[in-house]
């Protein structure tokens, strides 16, 4: 084990993780910079309650990020709360597209029914 900062994980990753090391670091970094570190009041007060709530929510995510990524769970990347709403927008757009497609199919099906007898 060297003391190089670049080799933060010296032991093999659990579950034969491959390539998820950056996410592991993110979890560790967030856990430290948000939750730890000396707290002194700056001039700009981000309401501590906001940060605490954020921390609580993040703790749920962070702590499980590592393990979850390894088994392919990545819901937080689509969680509107965590992804600044873009995930929600995407879902809405997809929903819209699917509704449109369904309406198109319905119309096509009806038209085929209507046109069917004409063909014969």
């Amino acid at each position, binding site marked *: 084990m060297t003391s190089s900062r670049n080799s933060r994980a010296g032991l093999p990753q659990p*579950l034969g993780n491959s390539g998820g090391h950056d996410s592991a670091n993110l979890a560790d970094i967030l856990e430290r*910079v948000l939750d730890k570190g000396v707290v002194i009041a700056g001039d700009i007060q981000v309401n501590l309650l906001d940060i605490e709530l954020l921390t609580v929510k993040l703790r749920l995510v962070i702590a499980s990020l590592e393990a979850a990524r390894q088994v392919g769970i990545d819901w937080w990347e689509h969680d509107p709360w965590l992804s600044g709403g873009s995930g929600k927008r995407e879902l809405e757009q997809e929903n819209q597209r699917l509704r449109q497609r369904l309406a198109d199919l319905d119309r096509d099906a009806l038209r085929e029914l209507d046109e069917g007898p004409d063909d014969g």
Partner: protein
Amino acid sequence: MGEQHVVWLYAVTRRLDVARFPATTGVAREPVRIVEAADLMAVVGSVGAGEFGEDALRRNLEDLAWLEATARAHDAVVDIVNHFGPTVPLRLATVYHDDDSVRASLVAHRGEFDTALRRVTGRTEWGVKGYADPDSIANHSVEEQVGDVGEGTAYLLRRRARLSALQAAESEAAAKAHRIHEALSRIAVVAKRQPVPHAELLHKRAKIVLNGTYLVDNERADEFADTVRTLDDQHPGIELDLTGPWPPYSFAGVDQMSP
């Protein structure tokens, strides 16, 4: 009219050899600089109020992508400072209106910073996470417990055996985690167990049973790492993951007045 700036605080240190300090950029890619007062040095950067002012900050902190970039940049600066001498890392988003406010804060918290700097001098923070796989342990002992009974009864028996095996495996993993933490605590100057993550969000095969941080004297760092490796070998069913060296995030706090 230029953009309004605020002052982002990364870390507090002293006896930083400013001449050797490399050109470093911070959370807004701004050049990092030093503000001095009360024999202390604050490592700061001037950042745009449009992104780091009060309202923007609150909004941005909830954007995981922004948060990730900012956290990494903050940590990178703190890490560099930490290479030059004892460092007290500040929590993310400690922001002042100007340098005078930073100086006033250094003066006001001088005693606490001194104490914190003394505590972390010559020491490094390490993180150790332990992952248990209680499921696979539990699977072994189930089959042989079901005797010659009807199908439905056998199902219930198997189910009950499985549940209790799982329970036993979990408490065994917890006991192992406790022993591992105890062993590491004996090498560390200060040791802490952090809250472990919510089980239901974890894949059940990778339950975190230990989330420890350890402040270790630098001359014992190798011994600590070796011990982690040894404990990893001695405890089948528990995978240990060592991270570090970290700046002393978990041990510089003024609320932790352990020796």
